[in-house]
């Protein structure tokens, strides 16, 4: 990828952000590439060392507070006409409740996923408790002179210990994935808000 393509990709990714900010960023990355080339690197090398456009764009967007993006988005590009305002006020009871409903749906979706992840830990705890009970039964039943039944409980206990350890790592994995999903959703939301603005 050459410098022109690289900067073009970044510009495309940042579409919707204030023009001045984007231009400043572009010239910053351009300068970095030029300085690398001045050191004797080829254009391709200099671009590769600066990073991939996708990484850079994601990093930039993740850094901007959501409130700023929304503010930028909401600020009208021209003053609204009277009939537009009237229409907006007229429909606001519907629009507003739709917005709340949408937020509630997303929120509950994440709550469900989160509780699913947490419930895995509960299952894990139950299995761990079962293993303790198995060990206890093994000791008591063996002491009462029934070693074969005792051995069966020991087997169950060992199985439960294994399952509990496995489940613990499984639960950690699921919880971690949940947070990754949450972060990606936020990023996706930011990107879609930014993207829509300039697509006229």
């Amino acid at each position: 990828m050459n410098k022109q393509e690289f900067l073009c990709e970044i510009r495309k990714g940042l579409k919707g952000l204030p023009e001045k900010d984007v231009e400043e960023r572009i010239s910053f990355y351009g300068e970095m590439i030029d300085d690398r080339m001045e050191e004797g690197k080829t254009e391709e090398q200099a671009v590769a060392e600066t990073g991939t456009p996708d990484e850079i764009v994601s990093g930039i967007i993740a850094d901007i507070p959501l409130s700023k993006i929304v503010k930028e988005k909401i600020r009208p590009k021209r003053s609204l006409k009277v009939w537009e305002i009237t229409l907006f006020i007229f429909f606001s009871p519907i629009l507003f409740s739709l917005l709340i409903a949408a937020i509630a749906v997303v929120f509950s979706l994440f709550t469900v996923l989160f509780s699913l992840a947490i419930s895995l830990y509960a299952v894990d705890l139950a299995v761990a408790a079962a293993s303790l009970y198995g060990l206890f039964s093994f000791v008591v039943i063996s002491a009462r002179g029934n070693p074969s039944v005792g051995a069966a409980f020991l087997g169950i206990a060992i199985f439960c210990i294994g399952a509990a350890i496995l489940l613990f790592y499984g639960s950690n994995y699921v919880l971690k994935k949940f947070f990754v999903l949450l972060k990606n959703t936020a990023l996706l939301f930011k990107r879609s808000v930014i993207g829509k603005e300039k697509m006229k």
Partner: protein
Amino acid sequence: MDAQLKRGLLDVCVLSAIKNDESYGYKIIKDMKPYLEMSESTLYTILKRLETAELLTVRTAEHDGRLRKYYKITKNGLKRIENFKEEWREVMSIYKFVSKESGNE
């Protein structure tokens, strides 16, 4: 590391890179490289923040037929470095105590 703390540390790092002489983006990254790796995007955010806080000033000058931005530290920027050093003397003595008491693992 705590994000707030890290931000403060990186700010002082960049200020130190331009303490003695004005510098430009790529040189700042190169000068810091033996001590810490910083991506271009991170540096950009920090430079912006320091400019807004008036800890450095920016000027654009021609270099080799193209434009380059040079960053120069202000009085407040120098003061920030001094404050940092003073604060960290205290932190270091706390660290010494903590290491000693916890058996320095």
